[in-house]
């Protein structure tokens, strides 16, 4: 019997209509757990590096996490993985909600989609019965509307649906896959789905998920639940409200937006408004939020309620669900003070199926180009003068790929190069061709430098976590480290001392903490995310917040009790390292190199080019990678990835680097 996982994948070929249920190799669970880990293995094995992300040969994988569908609190992530049309690298995005668990109950760990359907279709997975159904009547329909249609059509109120909107159908490079309560937004996976002619996947399951050691497993779950209750009542002291809680984060519950609005930048990631937040704004925004929100909602098997049902009379569905801080991304990018605008446009964008982080930035970028005379009335006929109207104008153009929208739909990086005329200079907030968080700060943060530079996820929130973003105020540090149970074994002394000293005279960025400690802290943050990406546990309960309910200690026990495998803390760490390296070599094989590993140029005002190179060197060394950021043969073999080291291209690259090792440092050129 298989525990925690179902042991089966569903293989769908949309070109031929072939559907297969395939048993998986349990050995892969031991090596990669599941979710992102096993997705990466499939992509490495089956998608050669030259495959165009929008071609039928690309795979689109919907994977439940290893613990989805078990009683583990908040284990509900669906990890969608493919190659991104925007970055041309591996693209993955996690969504919460209910899809992953339902897929498990239907009897599958993953749905692996290849090929391309000649006509628009949707997939209906009902336990053992799997059908490819006509979706021509859903063409052009919104993602939420589509889900409602399918629910009615199948007459299945408990069906779970992931769908694309117009943006995905039209292959907008930042199109999302929407699932009502949540969405997989980053890196254009909705465009990949659109390129396959797949409008939606509907799933319903009524089968069991087994647990290997039930009593132990439930005991840990109960502890987690208790800790969640404790953390909901005991926010971290000494940090801004939004960082003091658990969840992903508590944007719907909290009204206090001082931290986001005054620390993040407005417009096209340009302006800080340090004195934006005042009593009047606070009052107006609280009211807008109260008017918009009807109910706080959770994902499957989680009490934390990070999402909300939002009233939206002009949408066909009259409501939508919001999460996270998309309520602010449009508001701040459009430089408007009206939060109601945010609720309105975010709902429409969700119906179209667009990423709530990238979309506003692309629109602010276009606005900036217009204001600077690079785009004119010729490309943008009838462009309104008011920023809010401009955003609605651009939204319609982008999702239809109409006129200038066809260019903007490729994201800032590609659009800037297509437009030319100096537009490239305005591409100031992308890394690896992907729009980054709109933060512009003063002093270089060595930890974030490494996470932005070397992260494979295009999104800092899927890399960072565990530690505060700025030093704790003096009187709070002792209390913070007192019950800091989350710290990995063996690191207690070092990490606690870091918190206690950080901010003291001479203990400040960029040269403190020393590079070795920087690497260890970065490793911890990344590792916890790689574990969540495999188990399907929500980052909001685990890798993302400070002092989360899940940590390396209880996760290793939980995974062991769930699967019956014997995985201790070190073993779990090694699996995360294996997955991290596998993702890296997949990207290396597609051309990722050191020169790509650069945070947005103006992310910090004070930069230290030489020190940054040293940090990269140190980090690469720490990870067992060569100077180009490519895992060495020894590293790969040590992780049981010998077959990767045997790959012709990887072999060549390792060798090439080996020859130049004694030479000069690789010159980090600015990429055009």
């Amino acid at each position: 019997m298989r525990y925690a996982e179902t042991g089966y994948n569903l293989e769908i070929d949309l070109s031929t209509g072939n559907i297969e249920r395939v048993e998986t190799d349990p050995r892969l669970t031991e090596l990669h757990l599941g979710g992102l880990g096993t997705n990466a293995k499939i992509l490495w094995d089956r998608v050669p590096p030259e495959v165009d992300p929008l071609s039928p040969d690309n795979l689109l994988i919907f994977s439940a996490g290893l613990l989805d569908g078990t009683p583990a609190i908040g284990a509900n992530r669906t990890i969608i993985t493919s190659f991104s049309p925007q970055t041309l690298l591996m693209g993955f995005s996690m969504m919460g909600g209910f899809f992953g668990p339902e897929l498990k109950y239907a009897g599958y760990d993953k749905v692996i989609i290849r090929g391309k359907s000649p006509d628009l279709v949707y997939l209906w997975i009902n336990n053992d019965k799997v059908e490819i159904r006509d979706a021509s009547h859903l063409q052009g329909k919104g993602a939420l509307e589509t889900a409602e249609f399918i629910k009615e059509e199948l007459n299945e109120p408990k069906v779970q649906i992931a769908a694309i909107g117009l943006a995905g159908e039209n292959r907008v490079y930042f199109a999302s896959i929407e699932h009502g309560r949540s969405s997989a937004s980053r890196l254009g996976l909705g465009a990949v789905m659109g390129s396959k002619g797949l409008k939606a996947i509907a799933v319903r399951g009524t089968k069991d998920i087994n647990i290997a050691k039930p009593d132990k497993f439930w005991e840990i779950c109960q502890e987690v639940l208790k800790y969640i209750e404790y953390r909901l009542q005991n926010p971290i002291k000494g940090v801004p409200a939004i960082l003091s809680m658990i969840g992903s984060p508590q944007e719907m519950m909290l009204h206090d937006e001082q931290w986001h609005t005054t620390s993040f930048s407005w417009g096209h990631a340009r302006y800080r408004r340090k004195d934006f937040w005042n009593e009047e704004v606070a009052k107006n925004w609280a009211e807008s939020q109260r008017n918009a929100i009807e109910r706080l909602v959770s994902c499957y098997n989680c009490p934390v309620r990070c999402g909300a049902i939002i009233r939206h009379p002009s949408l066909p569905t009259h409501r939508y669900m919001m999460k996270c801080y998309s309520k602010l991304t449009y508001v701040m990018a459009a430089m408007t003070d009206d939060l109601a605008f945010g609720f309105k446009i975010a709902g429409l964008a969700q119906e179209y199926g667009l990423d709530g982080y990238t979309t506003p930035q692309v629109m602010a970028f276009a606005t900036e180009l217009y204001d600077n005379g690079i785009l004119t009335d010729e490309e943008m006929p009838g462009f309104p003068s008011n920023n809010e109207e401009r955003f609605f104008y651009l939204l319609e153009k982008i999702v239809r790929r109409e006129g200038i929208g066809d260019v903007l739909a490729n994201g800032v990086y590609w659009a800037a190069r297509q437009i030319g005329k100096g537009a490239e200079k305005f591409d100031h907030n992308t890394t690896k061709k992907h729009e980054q968080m709109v933060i512009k700060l003063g002093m270089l943060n060595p930890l974030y430098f490494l996470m932005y530079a070397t992260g494979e996820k295009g999104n800092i929130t899927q890399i960072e976590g565990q530690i505060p973003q700025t030093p704790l105020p003096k009187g709070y540090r002792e209390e913070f480290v007192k019950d800091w149970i989350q710290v990995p074994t063996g690191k207690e002394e070092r990490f606690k001392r870091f918190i206690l000293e950080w901010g003291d005279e001479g203990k400040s960025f960029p040269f403190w903490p020393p590079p070795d400690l920087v690497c260890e802290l970065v490793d911890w943050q990344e590792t916890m995310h790689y574990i969540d990406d495999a188990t399907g546990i929500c980052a909001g309960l685990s890798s993302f917040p400070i002092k989360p309910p899940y940590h390396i200690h209880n996760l290793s026990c939980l995974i062991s009790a769930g699967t019956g495998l014997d995985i201790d803390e070190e073993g779990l760490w090694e699996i995360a390292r294996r997955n991290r390296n596998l993702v890296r070599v997949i990207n290396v094989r597609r051309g990722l190199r050191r020169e790509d590993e650069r945070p947005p140029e103006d992310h910090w005002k004070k930069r230290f080019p030489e020190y940054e190179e040293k940090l990269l060197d140190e980090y690469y060394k720490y990870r067992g990678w060569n100077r180009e950021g490519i895992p060495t043969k020894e590293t790969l073999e040590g992780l049981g990835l010998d077959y990767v080291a045997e790959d012709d291209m990887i072999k060549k690259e390792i060798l090439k680097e080996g020859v130049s090792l004694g030479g000069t440092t690789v010159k980090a050129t600015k990429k055009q």
Partner: protein
Amino acid sequence: MANKTVKVIKINADECNGCRACEAICSAFHATPKYGTTNPAKARIHVNWDPLRNLYVPVYGGPYVEAECLGRDRYVIGEKEYDECLFCRAVACPSRDLFKDPDSGLPLRCDMCEDDPSLKEPMCVQVCLVDALTYEEREEEMEEEKEKLDELEMGLETLIDKYGFDKVADTLARISISKQAET
């Protein structure tokens, strides 16, 4: 007349966030071995869930019925019409799959998590941290009730409805003979 402890689960539908933790844990608690499997389709509570109409109504598996209702009512909530069956607590109703084990077809009735030793609170209440489900015990004077069907009897009733009395009795007899032969 006798005094009786009435166990009450109060449902505050306004507080429900639709997490379905109650369904998950109910199914796990009633699994053999306990917590050995999870399958919300086997839960004895069922959350009616229609987020885009802001409708969240947890319903417990209640009385056992042999036949479906003669007529059907319709509810209109938030512009949408719902069949009354959605909110009905009846278990084993032949007209639907709800509150029936998807494998065996056996009825799934809420038993308030009866256990030895008895729980402080039923499992669904324990996991519902937002207090959509709360638990109360009340002492009430009550008429002496005739024995309620327990779970086994209820299951047998369903089988009898499905296969007829004779077939079930025959099968039981056959099994008991073969079991005796084994020992």
